[in-house]
């Protein structure tokens, strides 16, 4: 029986790191401001006090070298957790992430093992502007060799973060900045949630919604809004975006026959396009409507709250998308 203990998303992350560091002396963390300061979002708070500066390493503002530090240390047998403060900053380090970390195992004929976890903070909603608000997970999911994880709640965060650290491949753990303070039941004991396994957040029968990170919560809120009108929405949070649990999504769509894919990222070329393609391939004969996609418009993330609130999908726009999908008549029906 799990303890009835509430913890925030950020502290669930922190606890997972702490427990992994207690369990495995090869785990260390490195990044900007993560040591003495505890991370700009408090993600690594208190860990340097426990584990010392040798295992909680403050680095220069050097994203390429931070990832390189992780790659080299991982190949040399350690289990690094390296932090890129904002997801936008990973673009500075793309060579080390994409050309080095992701490919070393393959390029070296399978000999290398790269148990590297990259942690970062993605998503908008804080008026952080175009360079501190992006959702770039699709870029990462496109790269063979990487795994990508994006938890939507504290419980998943703790279990998924433990899996990331235990994982023997380079894995990117994306925290959503707007979820950092979200609280939920999180057992104190150690547990892990396997990568590549989706979570049905809310069962339903009329339509399937696929959403992750903060959008998974918005989708649940949308589903609750629609319940009053007798609409039953199934919400699936893939939790891991690479590898993607296509089977769970397809199984659901074959039951509901309609599906809406939601993400905070720009819609064009987003991960929703891939998910839509997989669904039409695996469940074409079961679909009663085209796969609907909801994402951000094709612009950088705007700064002003007045603009950003229009830019980001939310429960209302998701609910509207669901209604539109359900409203589409069957051919000959």
């Amino acid at each position: 029986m799990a303890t009835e203990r509430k913890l925030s998303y950020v502290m669930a992350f922190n606890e997972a790191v702490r427990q992994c560091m207690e369990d495995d002396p090869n785990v260390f963390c490195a990044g900007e401001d993560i040591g003495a300061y505890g991370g700009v979002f408090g993600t690594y708070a208190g860990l340097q006090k426990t584990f010392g500066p040798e295992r909680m390493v403050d680095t220069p503002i050097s994203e390429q070298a931070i990832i390189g530090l992780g790659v080299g240390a991982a190949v040399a047998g350690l289990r690094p957790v390296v932090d890129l403060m904002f997801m936008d900053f990973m673009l500075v380090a793309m060579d080390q992430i994409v050309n080095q970390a992701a490919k070393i195992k393959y390029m070296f004929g399978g000999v290398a093992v790269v148990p590297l976890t990259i942690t970062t903070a993605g998503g908008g909603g804080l008026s952080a502007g175009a360079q501190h608000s992006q959702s770039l997970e699709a870029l990462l999911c496109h790269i063979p060799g990487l795994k990508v994880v994006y938890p939507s709640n504290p419980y998943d965060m703790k279990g998924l973060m433990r899996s990331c650290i235990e994982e023997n491949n380079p894995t990117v753990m994306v925290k959503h900045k707007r979820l950092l303070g979200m609280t939920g039941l999180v057992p104190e004991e150690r547990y892990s949630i396997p990568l590549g396994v989706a979570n049905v957040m809310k069962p339903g029968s009329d339509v399937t919604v696929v959403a992750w990170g903060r959008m998974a919560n918005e989708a649940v809120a949308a589903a609750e809004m629609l319940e009053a009108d007798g609409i039953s929405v199934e919400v699936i949070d893939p939790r891991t975006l690479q590898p993607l649990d296509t089977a769970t999504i397809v199984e659901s769509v074959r039951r509901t026959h309609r599906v809406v894919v939601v993400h905070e990222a720009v819609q064009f070329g987003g991960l929703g396009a891939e998910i839509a393609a997989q669904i039409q391939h695996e469940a074409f004969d079961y679909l009663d409507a085209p796969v609907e996609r909801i994402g951000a418009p094709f612009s950088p993330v705007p700064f002003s709250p007045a603009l950003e609130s229009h830019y980001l999908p939310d429960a209302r726009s998701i609910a509207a998308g669901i209604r539109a999908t359900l409203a589409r008549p069957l051919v000959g029906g």
Partner: protein
Amino acid sequence: MELSRVVLMDLHRRMVRIRLFEEAAGRLAEAAKLPGFLHLYVGEEAVAAGVCGALTDQDQITSTHRGHGHLVAKGGDFNRMMAELMGKSTGYCKGKGGSMHISDLNLGMLGANGIVGAGSPIAVGAAFANKYNKNGNVAVAFFGDGATNIGAFHEAANMACALNLPIVFACENNEYGEFTPRHVTMAITDIVDRAAGYGMPGVIVDGMDVVAVHEAASEAVARARRGEGPSLIEAKTYRFYNHHGVQNLGLKYRSDDEVAEWKQRDPIFSFEERMVEAGQATTTDFEAVWAQLRADIEAAIQFAEESPLPTSDMVLADVYTLMGAK
């Protein structure tokens, strides 16, 4: 420092191994027997040999796109190297890496690298692991003069110094970044000038003199092992062949005189002359080394040619480490 005859002959052997491997690779490429790009190390042998001669198998190196020399100098196996260049399943990387990604983790060779400058941050990581594990091992980042113009080098050098890691930055200054001469791409003449900006010592050595390289490397490696931090070695050297392949397109970017001048200072032949003059070895001694290694190369070519190509099911193997597997 007086080097023993055993050490001197070992350095020589490493250089000859590189020369013979690279010349064989060049001939095979010209005969269209090697797929892909080929960046030959001929002319720069004293650098890899001198540095790697100061390292153990547990010390790590990161390399460049001109990386065969580093693997050979670290003790790389001719058979597996040649097979890799031919894209065979018996190659170091099972034919998935090729010339630009050749590696041997058991020898601490963390890979040639297709991205200029990208090896240095990885060497920083290996050096970090050495310090973390207190194992006394040292990491060496090899890179060219051109790589010092890339951000990754700057980040790596600064971080290594900030964290006081056991690492040596070994710059092969061959005066050209691909086809463009150094003076066009930087306003300094000596790469070593950059060292002070990171707070590490730097030294210039004659990169055509394996003894000089070895002595500088031994000192830098010893310093790193003692926990005294990073240092930079700039070896002034030259590539005898082209940026890639042997002849490239035949476009002129350096004068015949310049090439001939550097060839006068051939690191292997000049070393042999000095050894003979000093009475430390005879031409017969050296001929024996060349003859034996030539035989090894011929055997490696045969091994590679007779090795099977990888099967199509290998495309999807090794993208990920499977859980429970190592």
